[in-house]
């Protein structure tokens, strides 16, 4: 498979469709576009092992890794994956900034910050400290950073037990909450658990750490491999027992579904079995809906909300299950946004040299949401929610939060 990814560039017919969709090259000339940087430049890079030298150029680093090019390529060229690997080789040659090593380890940072969450949050909100962080570290002073929860989702969940452990296996699910829920949005995790339980599932929350995606997207492949291998072996026993693993984080679940395999070249049996059982939570619930098994007793939610399907969600190739679910809620009008990308791409938009690009990438989306004058927006991916809220001032929730609200009734 690892050779297949690179070999796919031979299917490139230079049709330029990827160029027309790339949200980054539309926003900055610093990124010449996926065709040039991907299949074309790749031919000039050394075909050797990671770490070998080649004519890898700096513009590659401006690819945000959103993956839209690979989705739209009619020839099946794995453009974004080729770029991700080339970036790792480039970073191995030229060195990785300390900043990238830190922002790519959310769970490690949280270990220090969570116990002193109020202090940490005050520090992150302090203009002086943010100015220093920009000057010393290169994290843009305005970049949207989440607030640490004072108790992790794991801690909060410890006292919770799903109703009935005597349920058959078919009614069990494992919740892969990811770092976003664990450290920053534990309430979302609780709502996800409640929605799953409402549909008759016993929800198992095994201990879990980061999937390694931020490390992968920052080109730190060997560290990323260590994280994803550890996570896969934690989750594999459940997957082997046929228990679906659900996630509220579309990028982390995509990492486990295919990016760890396609980009990192991970091919352990643990990962393969976890991949096969990995579901986006809306994908799982829409599957129930298709079989007539979803609890559809929703209370009205009188809102008009813009919905943005994040790039990584579209990368799942599962359509728009969130829309299928939200349209069941009486009174809720959902307006699917036409914009490509919010710009943040995980940690990309946090970086000093890329913040303005990320904001320019997201501008069409921000303008569209602002024009609607909505009081709330929905989006499946955490960093995208933070970016959209930062840029528009409109609070942004995961679609599950709206389903939860419709189950319990508006308070």
């Amino acid at each position, binding site marked *: 498979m690892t050779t297949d990814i690179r070999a796919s560039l031979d299917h490139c017919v*230079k*049709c*330029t*469709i990827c*160029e*027309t*969709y790339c949200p980054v090259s*539309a926003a900055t*000339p610093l990124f010449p*576009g996926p065709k040039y940087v991907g299949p074309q430049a790749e031919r000039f890079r050394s075909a050797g092992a990671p770490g070998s030298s080649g004519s890898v150029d700096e513009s590659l680093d401006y690819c945000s890794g959103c993956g839209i090019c*690979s*989705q*739209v*390529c*009619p*020839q*099946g060229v794995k453009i974004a994956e080729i770029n991700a690997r080339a970036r790792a080789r480039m970073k191995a040659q030229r060195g990785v900034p300390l900043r990238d090593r830190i922002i790519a380890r959310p769970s490690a940072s949280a270990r220090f910050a969570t116990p002193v969450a109020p202090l940490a949050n005050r520090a992150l909100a302090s203009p002086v400290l943010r100015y220093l962080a920009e000057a010393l570290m290169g994290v843009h002073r305005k970049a949207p950073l989440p607030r640490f929860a004072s108790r992790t989702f794991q801690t909060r969940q410890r006292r919770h037990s799903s109703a009935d452990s005597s349920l058959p296996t078919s009614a069990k699910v494992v919740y892969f909450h990811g770092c976003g829920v664990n450290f920053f949005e534990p309430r979302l995790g609780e709502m996800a658990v409640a929605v799953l339980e409402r549909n008759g599932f016993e929800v198992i929350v095994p201990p879990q750490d980061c999937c390694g995606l931020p490390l992968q997207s920052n080109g730190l492949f060997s560290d990323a491999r260590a994280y994803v291998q550890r996570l896969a072996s934690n989750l594999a026993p459940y997957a082997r027992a046929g228990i679906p693993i659900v996630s509220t984080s579309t990028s982390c679940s995509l990492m*486990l*579904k*295919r990016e760890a*395999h*396609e980009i990192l070249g991970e091919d352990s049996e643990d990962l393969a079995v976890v*991949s*096969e059982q*990995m579901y986006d939570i809306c994908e799982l619930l*829409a599957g129930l809906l*298709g079989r007539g098994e979803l609890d559809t007793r929703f209370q009205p939610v009188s809102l008009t909300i813009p919905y943005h399907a994040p790039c990584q969600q*579209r*990368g*799942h*190739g*599962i*359509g*728009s*299950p969130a*829309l*299928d679910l939200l*349209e069941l809620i009486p009174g809720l009008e959902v307006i*699917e946004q*036409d914009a490509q990308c919010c710009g943040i791409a995980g940690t990309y938009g946090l970086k000093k040299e890329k913040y303005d690009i990320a904001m320019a990438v997201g501008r069409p989306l921000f303008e569209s949401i602002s024009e609607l004058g909505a009081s709330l927006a929905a989006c499946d991916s955490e960093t995208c929610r933070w970016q959209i809220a930062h840029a528009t001032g409109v609070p942004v929730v995961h679609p599950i939060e709206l389903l939860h609200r419709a189950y319990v009734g508006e308070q």
Partner: protein
Amino acid sequence: MSADTVVIGAGLAGLTCALRLAEGGRKVAVVAAGAGSLHLGGATIDILGYDPGVVASPAAVLGPFIRAHPEHPYAQVPPSLWAGALEWLRARCEPLPLMGSMDQNLMLPTAAGALKPSAFAPESVAAGDLSTGGKVALVSFSALKDFYPKLAAANLNRAQPGSAERIEARAIELLGTVAGEADPGTLRLARAFEEAPFRAEVIARLEGRIEPGERVGFPAVLGLYRNPEVVAELAERIGAAVFEIPTLPPSVPGMRLHALLSRALKKARGRVVLGAPVVSSASYNGRLQSVSTDTGARRSSHEARHFVVATGGVSAGGVTLDSSWAFKESALDLPLDGVPPPGTERFCPDVFGSHPASQVGVAVDEEWRPLDAGGRVVYDNVRVCGATLAGAEPHREKSGNGISLVTGYAVADAILRS
């Protein structure tokens, strides 16, 4: 995922069919290996350009053409449907009006300076019609590698339309970088034209260089979606009519048409899944039940009552051809018609001539359902439209988007009636 209709393919045929169904209240999902070919073409709707000589009026020739080619997709389209299909597209293109008619082909200059017969074209492109000759100044930028005004002008001066009126073409090349770039593509230029300062600079550089009675032709880069305003401003400030000539890919007029259709589809609550090639399917009792797409970790199944194959022909990968000369319909492995027998000459001297394999495609019944070699319907609930259909030679006839539009529309019509 379950829908009323799953449309496989996201080109003009697939989007037309899907949008019409969604507007008709059907739950539609488009699944496609990638984006369709609209971004590659000039967004002209060619109905019939050659038969085999240049067609002046598609309306006058279509009847005899269909009688002479009973296997052609056009022969399956009920005559009453034509006007509806064209009006439907015109209405969808209202923000970027579609000009032209069935009665008279436009003769549109190409980037190489040939004249292409097209029945319909976006307003900014149709304004370059040279069917009655005229004086044109072709403006471009020396930095743009995909458009050579001197070449186009020289060829246009040779390619007279045959009427008494003559074409007088000349080139104006604007030297230097474009918006600070030495090597911009058409897309970058189109984005630059959306910015007022760049337009002002171009207008200033053309000051005093346009002669009375000349129309001014640009490569099709006059803005992305704000094209009508950009064209109007240039025309007013230059003091001459302005038109666009579609370029090599990426084609900005194609992007505009794609945006109109795909935005309308989203609004009508249609779903689009890209990067999802169909890799297997399940059927029972002569009906297709589901198609599965490759999503990396596992296959994703799409169930529906109706399925539409709109994956294109050989050039788009809807029909594949391997080195052993084996043809295959790529989504559902449907039987193919028009496959040349073994031993047939594989190579032809004329690029735009007839080729033994050029009519390969899926044969259909009057309900657009695929037929096997014995003329039996393969699946009751599958329909085929666009370049996947057998019996046409779009490259030779100049009928590609015409076939995609009317057959996509007709398939939606058949599903809405069923």
